[in-house]
């Protein structure tokens, strides 16, 4: 018998009698929070910046203002031609994206309780890009902010997901004497534009 069958057989023999699966009732956790306010608060605590804007045009102009000197920029928003210094050709070899300075992506889901922003393969040209970029800029419609993780997962179809990620704040570590340092292996800064 190979290991697969041995393991499964042992688990079957050793498991306890069936225990029912508890139901999650999200109402128990509901505090009627102001979703936008809470989202902003939590993103800031996680080391990110949040700005409220009216449209994507403002996103790009504000981004340029914030990062005036950068050489390599890419935005996934419509009409980003003037902003982009590279095109989708560059994504064929992601290893060469190491000098990407600013990346702008659009998200469809955010979570108030922890400032997490959801991205899937649909929102990202290549998977490594939100990590390899120096600065990450995310755009999120306010009405797409849900209060808790429970509602977030109700909005995600598990069968229709190839890869997805919640990002809350910039990459960070406290592994040297517990001092918090922003910018470990992933993006060194995170800016969220709420529109």
């Amino acid at each position: 018998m190979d290991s697969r069958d041995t393991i499964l057989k042992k688990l079957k023999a050793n498991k306890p009698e069936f225990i029912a699966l508890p139901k999650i009732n999200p109402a128990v956790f509901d505090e009627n929070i102001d979703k936008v306010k809470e989202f902003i608060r939590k993103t800031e605590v996680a080391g990110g910046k949040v700005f409220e804007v009216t449209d994507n045009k403002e996103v790009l102009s504000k981004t340029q203002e914030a990062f005036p000197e950068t050489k390599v920029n890419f935005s996934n928003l419509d009409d980003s031609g003037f902003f982009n210094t590279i095109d989708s050709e560059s994504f064929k070899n992601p290893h060469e994206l190491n000098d990407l300075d600013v990346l702008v992506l659009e998200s469809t889901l955010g979570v108030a309780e922890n400032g997490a922003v959801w991205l899937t393969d649909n929102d990202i040209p290549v998977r490594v890009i939100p990590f390899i970029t120096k600065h990450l800029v995310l755009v999120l419609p306010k009405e797409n902010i849900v209060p808790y993780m429970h509602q977030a997962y109700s909005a995600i179809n598990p069968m229709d997901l190839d890869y997805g990620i919640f990002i809350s704040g910039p990459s960070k570590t406290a592994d040297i004497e517990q001092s918090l340092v922003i910018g470990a292996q992933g993006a060194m800064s995170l800016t969220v534009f709420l529109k």
Partner: protein
Amino acid sequence: MSHSKLAGIFNKDEKKVDWHDKALWFVRHKRDLSVHQVKGWEELRNLGHGIKAHTLSHLDVYLEQFEANALKNGVQVHWAANGDEHNQIVHSILKADNAKKVVKSKSMLTEECHLNPFLEANDIEVIDTDLGERIVQLAKEKPSHIVLPAIHKNKLEVDELFQEHLGTEPCDGDPQYLTGEARKHLREKFIHADAAITGVNFAIAENGGFVVCTNEGNADMGAHLAPIHIACMGVEKIIPKQEHLGVFLRLLARSATGQPITTYSSHFRKPGKGVKMHIVIVDNGRSKQLSRPDFRASLHCIRCGACMNTCPIYRRSGGHSYDATIPGPIGSILSPGKDLTKYSTLPFASTLCGSCSDVCPVKIDIHTQLYKWRQIIGKETPQPFIKKKSMAAMGKIFSKPSLYGKVGAVARWALRTLPKSLINAWPNIWGKTRDLPVGPKKSFDQWYKERENNKKTDQK
């Protein structure tokens, strides 16, 4: 070596103990602040416990479901009965594509299986990419904490290590500079890696996907750049449905560091373009632990590390004093299941204060399990003759009131009459650091009897 001996060594440097204690207590404090903001926190813990208990009672079914879905997603699934087999499997995957350079993100399972030395012996470079793990790896040590692997090292030690291995400038332990240098060093490694290994925080039966949580982004950097992604998981990492992540992701980071969620929570399901994805499912003693009714709940653990941060012993003895892959309270209930004799002192490295059980996000009854391991160790492992005899003697004395009275009187007399120097110098470990109480003239017993007699005389 026993836990107490290793703890003794750690305690030679009291300043370091104080630092370690305070640093971890601060993490516990941040956890408190964070969880007190969550309405229904205790209900969330109940759910975490309940979902895990249910899953264990249906584990084989969920694993098969997970496997079938993962295969459908284009992921290869492997099964390993033990650490050796796990290492062989990982090696054979690497060998098939002639992969020589591997980047690894945090995975306690690969630590448990001793994967690194195995691969290194086969001429494969393995780089731990979590900063704390990299520090420990450069120092040729083991993680001393499951979430904060280098918590036992101070910044000057890191400074020196980096100068030696990464060629950094002396910087008086500046964390900002050192982290920046590590970033550069690891970027190189990510870009040139032939394969990435990650752990798994949660594997979802219903869709064959799995979730990896990091703060640094190292798991994703590795997994998306390298052409091979191997994810290694213990059988107990499975959860039935994606919606259950809503419970566990809310519990995990808050319990671990006080963050409401880790910076990155990556949901892997189908391989990216040009990437081969493998999952290795490992037993290595877990099915055995599942067979023990008193101890199976230890498999609920989501590796948040909160029980370590809260443990007053762990904080003052250091992770290495447990001499096990998983230290601290949870380690002390897992390790005896693997080697009862080797780890026989761990369940005694506790005052049974119960803080671990109250802090645990999935409500493992850790201190009760420690007590139960003690009973098994008392019966099944060789015990010092003196301990055995004295326990039996105590048992006798306490079951016979008449004997008990006599023994007590002698002890009290000794405490009262003998000089302090003599009492404290007895083969009496208590007296090394503490005085004994002054023995009173009368026991409560005697006082009470006299009082009753006096009452009777009064009445006459």
